[in-house]
């Protein structure tokens, strides 16, 4: 049932060899296909074996699932948007999807907006303490680790250390905070992220709480996930044991430490925006927005932006056509339209060719709104976006401020 925890290991030798932490995820994905529970698996694969080019792949043959085994840290594919745009929101296809916490949140937000059919999805959550931008990661591996990026066979983030393993078997380790202070390390939004374990998915899989490198710690997060795991155990696809109370405590402690670190980053990043005076802020953002080339990249990447007829298009009367940089209405409307539901996936900032600090601003606003409206985006399908919904209870609230 929901809340169950397992230490799992794949029963498949081939998968065990290729996978990183016991291969439970790969085995579960394969089982989901074999058992007919899903029609396809959507996971991330290194394109042509290139670790810095992780792309979403749709797999329908169980034998091909193994190609997605192993973790890719230097990739941040837009799974939720892929699901919405190219698979029609899983409207008529049952899919098992591997999701980081932000992917799961984005899928849930799109479900609220009736763009994805969550009933057709099996969300296999992957614990995550951050991803790295591929280009920056390569530079970092060259300059900081003094290694050839092409030689890297695995990366790992643990206890605020970034470790890379090279193909000759050597491992190199660096302090993550030091790297990040020099502008390397994880993507900016990942540093600020407080969700390491995707409890909003059907199951959450990770290495925290395991003692050797051949096991996966699984937390069951929904009844759907529970049924699925039980079937997989019965079919002998994974071998499980109960985690000790020490193991569960370790998971909790590591999660707390990561959250604490994220809060520090939030404080630091947000302070850089809030400590300016009002006029300085206006000048700062005017300068930033004046660099916008109106490529619509942020809008097209954002999992919250879903309107088919976007008000920012030239013929809608808000943004005059043919102007670059666009009218200030462009960034203002885009930001205010998504700020209540931002899942801090960082896609907007990733795609921005002018490198505007969009995710930093939007997530900062989101944290403030989350406090005002007692709303956490991406956690619960039944909680509707706070700026697009009202409740009956508010009828008896007479103030001009929302106090929930």
């Amino acid at each position, binding site marked *: 049932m929901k809340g169950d925890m397992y230490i799992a290991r794949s029963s498949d030798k081939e998968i065990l060899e290729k996978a990183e932490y016991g291969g439970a995820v790969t085995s579960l994905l394969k089982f989901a296909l074999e058992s007919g529970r899903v029609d396809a698996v959507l996971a991330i694969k290194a394109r042509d074996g290139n670790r810095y080019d992780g792309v979403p792949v749709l797999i329908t043959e169980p034998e091909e699932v193994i190609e997605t085994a192993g973790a890719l840290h230097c990739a941040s594919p837009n799974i939720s948007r892929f699901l919405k745009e190219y698979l029609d929101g899983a409207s008529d296809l049952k899919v098992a999807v591997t999701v980081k916490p932000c992917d799961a949140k984005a899928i849930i937000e799109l479900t609220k907006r009736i763009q994805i059919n969550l009933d057709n999805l099996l969300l296999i959550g992957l614990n995550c303490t951050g991803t790295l931008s591929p280009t920056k990661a390569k530079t970092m591996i060259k300059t900081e680790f003094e290694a050839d990026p092409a030689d890297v066979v695995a990366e790992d983030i643990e206890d605020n250390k970034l470790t890379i393993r090279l193909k000759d078997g050597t491992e190199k380790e660096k302090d993550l905070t030091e790297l990040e202070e020099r502008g390397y390390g994880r993507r900016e939004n990942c540093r600020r992220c407080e969700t390491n374990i995707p409890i909003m998915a059907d199951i959450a899989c990770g290495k925290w709480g395991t003692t050797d490198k051949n096991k996966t710690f699984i937390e069951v997060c929904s009844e759907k996930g529970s049924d699925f795991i039980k079937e997989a155990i019965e079919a002998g696809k994974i071998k499980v044991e109960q985690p000790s109370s020490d193991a569960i405590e370790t998971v909790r402690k590591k999660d707390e430490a990561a959250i604490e670190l994220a809060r520090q980053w939030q404080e630091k990043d947000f302070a850089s*925006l*809030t400590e*300016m005076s*009002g*006029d*300085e*802020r*206006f*000048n*700062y*953002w*005017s300068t930033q927005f004046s660099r916008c080339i109106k490529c619509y990249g942020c809008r097209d990447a954002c999992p919250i932006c879903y309107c088919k007829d976007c*008000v920012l298009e030239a013929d809608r009367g*808000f943004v005059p056509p043919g102007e670059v940089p666009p*009218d*200030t*209405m462009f960034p*203002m*409307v885009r*930001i*205010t*339209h998504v*700020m*209540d539901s931002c899942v801090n996936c960082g896609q907007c900032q990733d795609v921005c060719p002018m490198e505007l600090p969009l995710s930093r*601003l939007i997530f*900062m*606003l989101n944290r*403030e*709104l989350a406090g*005002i*409206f007692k709303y956490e985006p991406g956690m619960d399908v039944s909680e509707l976006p*706070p*700026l697009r*919904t*009202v409740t009956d209870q*508010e*009828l*008896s*609230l*007479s103030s*001009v*401020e*929302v106090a929930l």
Partner: protein
Amino acid sequence: MDEFEPKIVGFFCNWCSYTGADLAGTSRIKYPPNVRVIRVMCSGRVDERLILKAFALGADGVLVSGCHPGDCHYQKGNLSARRRVTGLKPFLEAIGIGKDRLRLEWISASEGPKVAETVKSFTQTIKGLGPSVFNRRRNEH
């Protein structure tokens, strides 16, 4: 230099606040001429875009006024307005426009004097804040 006379855009709901403003007029209550009233069918019609557009086009302040909660002609339109205004304030603050330049008030059709009071006090607030950053920037060029 002349005293700064702010430009305030008021979005008034057709059923309560606009009628309230009418009452203020027919009762000959004086209030500052700084507010430019735009009649909307419901304060719930006023979304972020209208407020932002008003600021971008040179409003020093934006006043949104609707029926008291529970009195909305469309049941809950005013509650939507309340959520939006509340939600927009952190944004206005973050990009340097300032949250105090946006105000929401509940004014019923019978509250003529409240229209005058609200406009008076909001005009004072905006005078205290000075011209909006958009306007100051425009004047510099």
